[in-house]
Every structure is written in C-alpha cells, then in structure tokens.
C-alpha cells in the first residue's frame, strides 16, 4: 500500500462507493417496480471490480457476467446509461436491448455482459488475441464467478490462452456460492487457483474484500499480460451480501455466515485503511459518499425520465 499513490487509492475507494450506491439504488428501484425481470447485485464484491479495473486503460477491455453492474461502473460505463439500460430505456447503454444481465458499452471497452455462465471467458481471450495481432499493448480481463470454473469452456480457453501467451487476465470472484450451490457441493478441491496449473498458467488467490490486495495482485497480472508475458488466473475470495437474484431469501446459507462477512465488508476495510493511513478524514469519506449518492440519484432520475423504446425498434440492430 505504501507504494500506491494516494490518487489511485482514492480512485479505487470512490469506485467502490459508486458501485455500492448504484446497487443499493437498484435494489430499491427493483422493489418499487421500476426494473423488469430480475437483478443480480454486486454488494460485497466491490473490491474486486474496483481493484482490478484501477489497473486498466480505456483501450483495455473486460468481459462480464449475469452480475455485471459493478464491472460496468468500474470499467467506466456512465451510471446514467447503465441505469437506463437496466430500466429498459432507449437511453440505455444497449438501447434497452440488453438489460441488466447484458449491460456494456464497447466505447469504454466493455462488450455486452454475457449471462451464460463462463460464456465470456473465450471472448476475452479472443479480444486478447486481436490485441496481439494488432500489436496493441491492450489487455483483456475476464470476470466470472467460481461456479463458472466448472464449465468446460473455462478449461478450453485457459489452455489456449496459456499456449498462445495471450494478454488476458482471468479474475475468478469466489463468493462461495453459485446460485444456491455452495462450493463444497461443486468442487472437491478448495483452492481454485490451482486449476491454473493444468494449463501451465500462474494462478494466485487473494483476499477479494481487500481492495488494495486485489489492486496489487491484479496490477502484477495486468502488467505481465501487457508486457507480453502471458495470462494468469487470479482468484478473489469474497462474498455477495444479498441473494443470488431478486427474491432470494438465502435460506440455503448457514446462520451467521453473512454476519461474519459483513464484518469484512470491503468498504469498511478500505475506509479503515484510508483513515488509518490518514489519506482521508471522516469528513472526506462523508463527502465522497454523498457525492456517490448524489450521482446515483441523478442516474435514477435520468433513467426514470428517459423514454421507453418504441416496440418496433425491436427489429433494429440485428444486422450490421
């Protein structure tokens, strides 16, 4: 942490605050009926998106999943167009064609999130391959849950990414559950990072609730990729505070588990760090929170005020 500039740390913290505020807002907006379908929220995992993306440039790219809001904010999708997309409005980042599970904006390096578990893993490798062809020094980062590492395409892709030395970084957010399924019911192993060995790729695990730890580990991985030294797998151990999706009471979780994890809330960890290091005062924190809150109020006003697409617009945007 000593070596990380104050700006960078404040940037990460701000990003985490913005994600938290965004998701809190979405939660209530969903309950209030503003949001169609379902939502998969990111509260509790903010350190991962924020810590990783703090290492990325605009011309780097990410792939995301059914739980993409945090990644989108961290990669720079404006909160207004993001929220509007989740509302299904025509001002949304996908013109209302994508929805909560498919948010993205290629202009900031995020193609639509892919809600088929693990579906984005080869796509990230493909973008990395393109960068290699194009002799750009951009990097592709793929976010996915620990559940995704049991899909075949994870295996196929990590092997090729390693074989071809692609500039891609694989970020596995191990939040202990895939929907209702605890890792113990889906893995015989406990250290998912070891799976990288099967591909001759470096694999590493970090505390995914410690944004600084995530940032530092991702920095190494991103720099390695950018320098043409190949891909890696970074497992971030974390926890989702809420249910898997709307209306999930988490009755499959043991009592007290969530409470334990709330103590390790990544925002609290980061706040304490900043306070202890005297990089920020309590007032400073308050100001930043208010700013994030204000931004998301405006985002939701924007989304509410935006028009719905006309029905026939469904017929547009299929063919290039």
């Amino acid at each position: 942490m000593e070596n990380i500039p104050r700006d960078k740390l404040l940037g990460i913290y701000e990003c985490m605050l913005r994600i938290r505020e965004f998701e809190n807002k979405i939660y209530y907006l969903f309950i209030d009926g503003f949001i169609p379908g379902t939502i998969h929220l990111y509260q509790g995992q903010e350190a991962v998106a924020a810590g990783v993306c703090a290492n990325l440039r605009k011309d780097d790219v990410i792939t995301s999943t059914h739980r993409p809001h945090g990644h989108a904010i961290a990669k720079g999708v404006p909160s207004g167009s993001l929220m509007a997309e989740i509302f299904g409005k025509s001002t949304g980042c996908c013109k209302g064609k994508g929805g909560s599970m498919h948010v993205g904006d290629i202009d900031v390096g995020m193609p639509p999130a892919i809600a088929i578990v693990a579906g984005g893993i080869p796509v990230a490798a493909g973008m990395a391959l393109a960068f290699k062809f194009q002799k750009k020094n951009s990097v592709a980062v793929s976010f996915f849950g620990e559940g995704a590492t049991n899909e075949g395409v994870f295996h196929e892709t990590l092997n090729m990414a390693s074989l071809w030395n692609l500039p891609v970084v694989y970020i596995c957010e191990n939040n202990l559950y895939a929907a209702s399924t605890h890792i113990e019911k889906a893995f015989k192993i406990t250290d998912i990072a070891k799976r990288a060995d099967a591909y001759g790729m470096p694999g590493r695990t970090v505390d995914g609730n410690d944004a600084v730890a995530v940032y530092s580990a991702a920095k190494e991985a991103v720099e390695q990729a950018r320098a043409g030294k190949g891909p890696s797998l970074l497992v971030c151990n974390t926890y989702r505070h809420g249910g898997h999706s709307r209306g999930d009471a988490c009755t499959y979780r043991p009592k007290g588990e969530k409470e334990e994890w709330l103590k390790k809330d990544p925002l609290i960890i980061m706040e304490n760090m900043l306070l202890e290091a005297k990089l920020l005062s309590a007032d400073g924190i308050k100001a930043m929170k208010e700013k994030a809150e204000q931004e998301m109020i405006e985002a939701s006003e924007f989304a509410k005020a935006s028009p719905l697409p006309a029905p026939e617009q469904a017929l547009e945007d299929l063919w290039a």
Partner: protein
Amino acid sequence: MKKMSIAEALREAIREEMVRDERVFCIGEDIGITGGFGGAFTVTLGLSDQFGHERILDTPISESGFIGIAIGAAMAGMRPIADFEYGDFAFCAMDQLVNNMSKLRYMSGGKVKLPMVVRVPVGATRRGAQHAQSIESYFFHVPGIKIACPSTAYDAKGLLKTAVRDDNPVMVFEHKKLYGAKGARKVEGAMDVEQEIPDEEYLIPFGKAEVKKEGKDVTIVATLRMVYESLAAAAVLEKEGISAEVIDPRTLIPFDWECVMDSVKKTGRLLIVHEDNYTGGWGAEIAASVAEKAFDYLDAPIKRVCAPDIPVPYSPPMEDFYIPSAEKIVKAIKEII
C-alpha cells in the same frame, strides 16, 4: 382432486414416478439444495427432503457433463430426469443431446436404450436474449428425440409421467409464464393456470392432440402459452362471428397429424402459433406438411404467427412486441378469412 399449478403438477409427477420406480432420479443445477430454490422454477422443491440428495442430484455448472452423465446412466439402466434451469443453456450441452442422446441407440443397431427426460424451461420473461429463447424447433429437427409441450397442469403431470416411462429420450418444454402465478419465484406476467388434478394416477399418451375449443371457420394450432393467446383470440373472433378451432398438439414428436388434418379438412384454414422464431420454426413443418397433404381442402394460405427473426429484446415494449399476442392472431386470421 387438488388444485395445482404446473410447477406443482410436474413436481407431483416426478414424486410419483420416483416412488414407483427407484431407477428414476433427477439431475441438474440448484434442484435439490436444502434451503434452495428447487430448480429455477420450484419444480423439484422439497423433493430432496423426501428422496435424499443422491436421487435429487445437484451438479456443478456443467451442462455438457451432466447431460452426458444422464445419457450414461440411462444406458446403464437408470431413468434420469435432467433439468436445464433455462432452455438457453441447453446449447451448452448440444453435442451430448444431438450427437449422443439422439443417436446412440441407432448407432448400436437398436441394442441400447436411453430412457431419459430432459426438462427445458422456455419463454421470454424480461431477462434479455440469453434467458428467453423458445428452442423447441432445434430439437424438433433431431431424429430420435420425442418432444412434449404441456400447456396445462393436467397435461404437465400426465405427459411428464409418460415421458419418464418412455424408453426413448424425451424433451419436455415448459413455459416459464405458466409454472404458477404465486410465490417468490414466479415471473413477471405469469398466468394463473391452476387446475384440479385427479387423485388417481393417469398418463397422457404421446401423439394425441387436444381440441381446446371447437370451431368451423379456421384451425389454430398452438402450444404452451400460445394456447392461451389463441383461445383469447378465438373468443374475440367468436364475437365477430368467426368460429376458430384451437388445437394443442401437446407433443410435437410424435405429432397428431390426424387431428390437425381432420380439423383443416373441416375448416379449410390453418394458422400456427409459436413463441419460437418464425423462420425455420416447427410451425413451418406443420404448414408445409398440411399444405402438401390437405392441398385440395385449403380455402386460404396457411399463416403463422411467431416471434420475429430477432433475438429476444429486453425492454418491455420490445419484448411485448416480440411475443405473439391474441391481437396478432386475430389480425392474421382476418387476413385469411
């Protein structure tokens, strides 16, 4: 008699078959976790309490793997019921479904049997393109797979029980908006299609359509949720003096050609409705076959009301536009009458 939603009726069917035959087991993601959902749509809720976690077998997220495992288990004498949480994920297991499940018996010269059921939730429910597809038509084209599409709780129970007892692979397509209109996991726009289910056991044979409403001016063939849109359209038309016959084939493979053909010979007109995309959908086969075989009986061109040839859009007005509606059915029928 007991009132049941489709999810409950399916659950009862599974329960009865599992009690009756110890070879039957369920396999899929999030189907049996204690405190969990009972599958994405509650169909297997509570069954692991009764049958244990071995027979309600939760898998990692590995569709190709668990379908292949179901295939092997079926060949070795079990009768698995596999569950795709959303039909869209079936594409992850397509190789196992198309290259193995449908072909191994044939390749063996008829020596092996694959008695297995694959449950596939379909239909658009405000979730965007990858959790919304109606994918019956892809499997309709695969020789060696039977296809059931229950639209009522009564049918759901009877067809699923028949599927479990069939010695061939059967895919059961279930519409998400028909599972039930209550509870935390119901989807937006869910219809209440609860029905009285007899206490006695019953089976529904494959290949027997049901005439949901008799009529004499036009025949409508529709499955799943489109049965209800068709009936709503028929009610509207009735008021305007047009009498539509609504047929639910209930199984697509085998298909009750006789029932549909007889109806068309009577009405001289046919409309097919499905939520699956238009081009190359199963409706095209019905239209083509009826046009060929009832050539001399047709008084008007056969029309189809289907989803347009686009992925499923997310935003409500666009999704509503995407899904075939009673209104569009009425309009199409007026064009051929």
